[in-house]
């Protein structure tokens, strides 16, 4: 029978084969061997205990936990006819009714020169991508700074790795880092999608047979027990240069692991923070502490809200002229 999807089926089967071949070495690595390698070359594998009630209560007395996350949404059509909105939220477990929101927006239309250059060049795109990241990172860090002032927390959990703040919001980030160090506020990043290849790179260095670099998420899939953590040796941690200590944690029953970043100066707290993350993560979830999940939900700008805000607060004529795409008009 003729099927429109035949070509696609072929492609997918092909991809599966390619991956199989490329990852043969990794896939065939048995668990024990890899764990030994990790212990020797990367860092100790530790079994974490959840924090006790009294420990948590002590954290609460010292100011509770603040979760920080950001989100963005876009209305409109192709470049440059779109508006992107950014929102950051810092929320303390103690002051639940005082969510700390910050926001920003961006559209190429408002940036002068882009107005006349509808043709997208690669550099343009990168520049725009950077702008987005800068805006979002900046308000996230700003929210965190304000949260420090306002909530005086024991620790701040940022959603995602810390390294991107160095890249996109350097000045503000240094400010935050300094305050946290001064005030003894532990600052951590919780990374849902780890993108590092620390173990893979090391494997490649050690074994000639391995000629590709594998990502940590691939290698660690199913290799740690629930509640186990790897504290990465400073020697191999590339983030060390930027001043962070890092680790991996299997924080839920899902076989994936998550990452944790902490300020170098606070690295003695990494285990405590890992235990905090383990404690706050539902066993059946994908590994993210519930508090961050909640902040994530609250900070999200839904399409409906975005559209509603545009319709309500933007001049109708301008809105239609610039931001309603042909596709939108159709439905």
């Amino acid at each position, binding site marked *: 029978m003729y099927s429109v999807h035949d070509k696609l089926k072929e492609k997918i089967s092909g991809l599966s084969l390619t991956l199989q071949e490329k990852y043969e070495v990794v896939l065939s690595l048995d668990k024990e061997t890899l764990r030994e390698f990790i212990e020797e070359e990367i860092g100790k594998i530790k079994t974490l205990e*959840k*924090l006790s*009630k009294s420990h*948590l*209560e002590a*954290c*609460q007395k010292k100011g*509770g*936990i603040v979760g920080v996350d950001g989100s963005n949404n876009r209305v409109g059509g192709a470049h440059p006819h779109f508006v992107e909105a950014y929102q950051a939220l810092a929320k*303390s*477990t*103690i002051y*639940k009714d005082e969510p700390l929101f910050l926001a920003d927006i961006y559209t190429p239309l408002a940036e002068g020169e882009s107005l006349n250059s509808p043709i997208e060049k690669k550099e343009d795109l990168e520049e725009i991508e950077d702008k987005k990241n800068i805006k979002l990172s900046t308000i996230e860090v700003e929210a965190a700074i304000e949260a420090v002032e306002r909530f005086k927390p024991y620790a701040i959990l940022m959603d995602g790795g810390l390294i991107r703040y160095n890249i996109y919001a350097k000045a503000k980030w240094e400010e935050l880092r300094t305050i946290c160090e001064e005030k003894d506020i532990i600052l951590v990043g919780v990374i849902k999608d780890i993108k590092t290849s620390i173990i893979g790179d090391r494997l490649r260095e050690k074994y000639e047979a391995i000629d590709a670099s594998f990502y940590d998420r691939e290698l660690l899939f199913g290799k740690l027990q629930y509640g186990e953590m790897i504290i990465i040796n400073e020697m191999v941690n590339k983030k060390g240069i930027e001043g962070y200590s890092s680790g991996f944690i299997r924080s839920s029953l899902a076989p994936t692991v998550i990452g944790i970043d902490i300020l170098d100066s606070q690295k003695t707290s990494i285990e405590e923070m890992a235990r905090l993350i383990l*404690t*706050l*993560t*539902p*066993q*059946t979830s994908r590994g993210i502490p*519930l*508090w961050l999940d*909640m902040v994530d*939900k609250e900070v999200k700008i839904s399409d409906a809200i975005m559209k509603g805000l545009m319709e309500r607060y933007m001049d109708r004529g301008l809105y239609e002229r610039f931001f309603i795409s042909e596709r939108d008009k159709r439905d």
Partner: protein
Amino acid sequence: MKVVGITTQQEVFVGSKDRNFRINEFLIIEDPYQDDLIGEVVEAQTFNRYIPLNIYGDMVDASVIESLKSLGYNIDEDTIYISKVRLLNEALYPVQTGSDIRLPKFSEVKEIMIQSTREEGLVLGVIRNTDDMALDMDEEFKDILYTFEERGLVPQKEIPYIMDLRSQHHYPHIGVFGGSGSGKSFGLRVILEELMNQNIPTIVLDPHFEMDFSETPDYLKEKKDFNDSFKCLQVGVHIGVKFEDLKSGDLKNLLDASSHLTDSMNNVVDILFKPRDSYISFADRLRMLTEAQEEGNIEKIENRIISSGDAEEKKAWEKRKELFLNYDKTCPYNSVRGILWRLKRLENEGIFSKDIKEIEIGLQDGKLMVLQGNTRILQVFSTYLLNNLYHKRREYKDAIYKKIAAEYFPPFIIVTDEAHNFAPKGYDSPSKSILKEISQEGRKYGVFLILATQRPTLLDETITAQLNTKFIFRTVRASDIKTIQEETDLTVEETRRLPYLRTGDVFISSATLGRTVYGRIRAALTTSPHTLNPFDELKLKTKQKDDGLFNDIKEKLPINEGDLLDTAMELERDTGITYTIQSLEEKLNQMVQKGYIEKEDTIFGYRYKNK
């Protein structure tokens, strides 16, 4: 409280962070672009966006939530309350999302809540979930009733439900539906108490012998005396049908109500029943005709005449012959027998021993007349009675219309429990025809129905459709819920709640209001005298009997074996009860077993003696 989400001109969602909504409460929506709108909560929900809906590992999430609590965050406090609110009147525009919501003041809802004054209406109960609005309620509506709840008698905190009796004139007839134990009879009792307060002439058909208003329930300290306002009458004992007043149609109705009449039987009545017949004259005619028919032919009857012993017998057979000649052809034997059998059955039930005068007088005095008897007797009797009274009222009204003088007959209300027995769906019954007629035309003459049943599905649908106000108590049976859905304006949400209503809570669906009220029937001021458990009753009755017998024989003790026959005869003389030696002995042995007397052996045989 604010309007949230998508709105229409009929319905909005309202969200609140701290106020849990209650179903059927009223809210005012302050829409900046139109006048204040009033709506009723039809669905209430709580929602916590953080508590995941699909929790596999309950325990884990619970531990995480506990941990968050230790960190100072209580997830329960992030619960929000959401309600669906239906506007009483359609708005001009869809309601503005974000509009403020507030609770109404009493003055704003008075018109929709209070249908009548306390003096003119029936104070039946409270409108549930109106306590906030009742705070600044006019004094005249405060403290006029109690409700009876699990914890006992509770003072009124909500707006009273006062039914407008006068509106019956435009929207007549009331239905009371609900499963067994849902509070129907209790509700009827309260309605009847109110009718008595208003001196409304009322007839109650009471197959359960429960509508007596002479006793005060335990929960009330003060007694409310209704004794001058009602009277219980048993069919066949206190009231009945005066045979001499019957017209052929009435008689046929009665016979038919007793047991269905065939066409041929109807015909027999038409032929054999004569105006001014007494029960005896009519029954004799039937009997003699059947006796003649049993002879088989005219020759045999003539033989009987010839061989008669005395003149009287002869005369009687001649009479039979005459009847035979006149009626044998038109009145088949079996049909005559059928009529005779039905007639005797009615007579045995005492129906012909009294009349309905007492009921008429009671109605004229504005009293509540409770007619008691088993369902079948009530069917028979009510058919006659209602026809009779309804037509009296009709004649009076028609006479007024025609401007001729007529004897006054008051408007009145007919109340019955187990109404499906009196007006069944699907087949004809004599009581149904008159109820149907009243349901359709009674309004014109001021005759109204209050019909209660636990099986609305079995009630004649034409009649059901005429019930403009319906009290709907807890209903569990799916078929009845379906009927209710079809026959009322209950919303889907309300219908869904029917199986879960508390006893005494009720939806009142009323054509006058054009909407449904969620209420609770007030505490009744009276109680049925026989709330005795049937098994206790049985015990009591047996004991009474035993005590009676012991009393009768006490004086005769000791009784020797040889005296049994004499004793039996003495007992028959004293008490009118006949014993054989054997049955007396049995009784005495039972008395021994129950410990009333002793039995001992003597040299003359055994004897029974005092303990």
